[in-house]
């Protein structure tokens, strides 16, 4: 392998955890339409995906680079890594970004064949890093707006303002996804087949898998969530044999089910809440969301911790935590879609003071340290 100017199709991973490798396999088979295959070692590979958040990453990188100095490499990390001659993709991983990154590696390789890139002057490198950082921040802000919208805080006494924060999940794809999710949770095997969309989708609750035919991608799913549905979708319970039959007919990509519904709810709500939600009744948290596998919207952990400590209303939550209401509303819509929160209809705002931890400043310092990583 490693011949220049040939398509980069054999990809090895270094430092990438098993879960991500599984995701990559699915992405390569599904959205990438088999353009890439995973191989066991860099020796067999045309390119490598290197996870810079792995244990002992610096040393692993050093060893890897010593052994394979010219192998095209795509770096994954939560923090921006500007390593010359590599392509960087920031986590959390998104299918589109990985595929774009791999395509970019291909271009790198082609440029390399024509001429070796001259070393950039130091100030140019600094400018590049700054630009990359700015782009990453912009990217992050864009994602936050896609999930939480732009709604300003409302005055609960102003009827017009209050109207703006409501939406009807049942009129959107979210409503059907919620129903399908709920039905799939009650099955011990098989799945729920969503009919009526351009390409089939299967919910498998027991496996926590959403099977999407290759015609679906994240962008298409998001676009679908923004528009009210014009026709009703059919939800059909199917058994394992019928799933096999569909799998032989279509090529499916497997996505984590809870994370997909979570995203669909966030995209649809965009900082709003389902119609009928009383702003003054208390939110009851049934269980903590599995945040390591979900999109963590701004203040999500803090809000959940508050609801876990003591049920309080949506307005009271925003007020007590001094945060914008749309972040509370976003999280509430997502947790409600997954049936992790409910509203206690017999309760009201309590206006009770919350106790402050004796070492609050220290805890804030630790948090700041974790956020800076």
């Amino acid at each position, binding site marked *: 392998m490693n011949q220049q100017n040939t398509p980069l199709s054999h990809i090895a991973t270094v430092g990438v*955890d*098993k*879960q991500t490798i*599984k995701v990559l396999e699915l992405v390569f088979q599904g959205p990438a339409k088999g353009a890439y295959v995973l191989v066991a070692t860099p020796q067999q590979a045309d390119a490598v995906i290197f996870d810079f*958040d*792995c*244990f*002992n990453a610096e040393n692993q990188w050093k060893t890897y680079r010593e052994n394979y100095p010219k192998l095209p490499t795509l770096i994954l990390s*939560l923090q921006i890594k500007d390593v010359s001659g590599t392509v960087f993709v920031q*986590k959390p991983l998104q299918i589109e970004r990985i595929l774009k990154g791999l395509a970019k590696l291909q271009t790198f390789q082609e440029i390399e064949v024509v001429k070796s890139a001259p070393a950039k002057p130091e100030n140019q490198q600094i400018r590049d890093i700054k630009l990359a950082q700015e782009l990453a921040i912009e990217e992050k802000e864009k994602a936050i707006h896609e999930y939480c919208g732009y709604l300003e805080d409302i005055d609960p006494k102003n009827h017009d303002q209050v109207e703006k924060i409501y939406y009807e999940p049942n009129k959107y794809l979210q409503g059907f996804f919620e129903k399908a999710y709920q039905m799939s949770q009650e099955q011990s095997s098989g799945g729920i087949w969503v009919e009526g969309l351009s390409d089939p989708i299967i919910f498998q609750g027991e496996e*926590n898998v959403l099977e999407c035919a290759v015609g679906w991608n994240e962008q298409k799913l998001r676009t679908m969530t923004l528009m009210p549905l014009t026709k009703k979708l059919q939800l059909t319970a199917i058994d394992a044999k019928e799933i096999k039959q569909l799998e032989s007919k279509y090529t499916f990509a497997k996505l984590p089910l809870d994370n997909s519904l979570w995203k669909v709810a966030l995209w649809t709500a965009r900082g709003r809440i389902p119609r009928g939600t009383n702003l003054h009744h208390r939110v009851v*948290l*049934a*269980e*903590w969301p*599995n*945040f*390591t*596998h979900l999109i*963590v919207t701004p203040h999500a*952990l*803090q*809000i*959940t*911790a*508050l609801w*876990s*400590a003591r049920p309080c209303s949506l307005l009271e939550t925003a007020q*007590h*935590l001094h945060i914008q209401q749309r972040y509370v509303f976003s999280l509430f819509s997502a947790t409600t879609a997954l049936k992790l929160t409910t509203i206690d209809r017999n309760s009201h705002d309590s206006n009770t003071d*919350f106790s*402050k*931890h004796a*070492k*609050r400043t*220290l*805890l*804030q*310092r*630790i*948090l*700041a*340290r*974790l956020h800076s*990583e």
Partner: protein
Amino acid sequence: MANNYKLIFTGPSGAGKSTAIASLSDIPVVTTEEKSTDLIPGVYKKTITVALDYGMIRLKNDDKIHLYGTPGQERFNFMWDILTEGGLGLILLVDNARTDPIEDMQFFLKAFAEFIQKTKVVIGVTRTDMAPRPKLKEYHRKLKEMGLNLPIFAVDARSQREVSLLLQALLYSLDPGL
């Protein structure tokens, strides 16, 4: 003058305490691992922590957060009380690939009940990629039976982001107003 604080990581052998500490620590983790001589069902590590793991987070004002991992073997239980004294909170890691991880969770929650009552606890379930069952739902069910609603996440102890989220959940549980 710099102050010293501590956070405690606990859980059965092989649950990823040493790795989780390494994911957060600013210094190379001091791990006292030895070749395994005890037969521990469901544990396939060649080495186990027989004393304790130690790592450290340095804060900007020079305060230090010492990260201690308790020894996984039960014959070192006597150290747990000493270790937890003055601790800020507890991070419990449970290995989903062990024979009865839910029982493990219950065991450690009971063993550290006094410390948890004074502080807070978060639970990370590791190796869910190797052993997808039991599911988190089942852990939540057991916690409900115990009258608890705790942060419980599936965690890859090698992932700095995931261990950091677990710690953030602990900090916000201690004080949501942070």
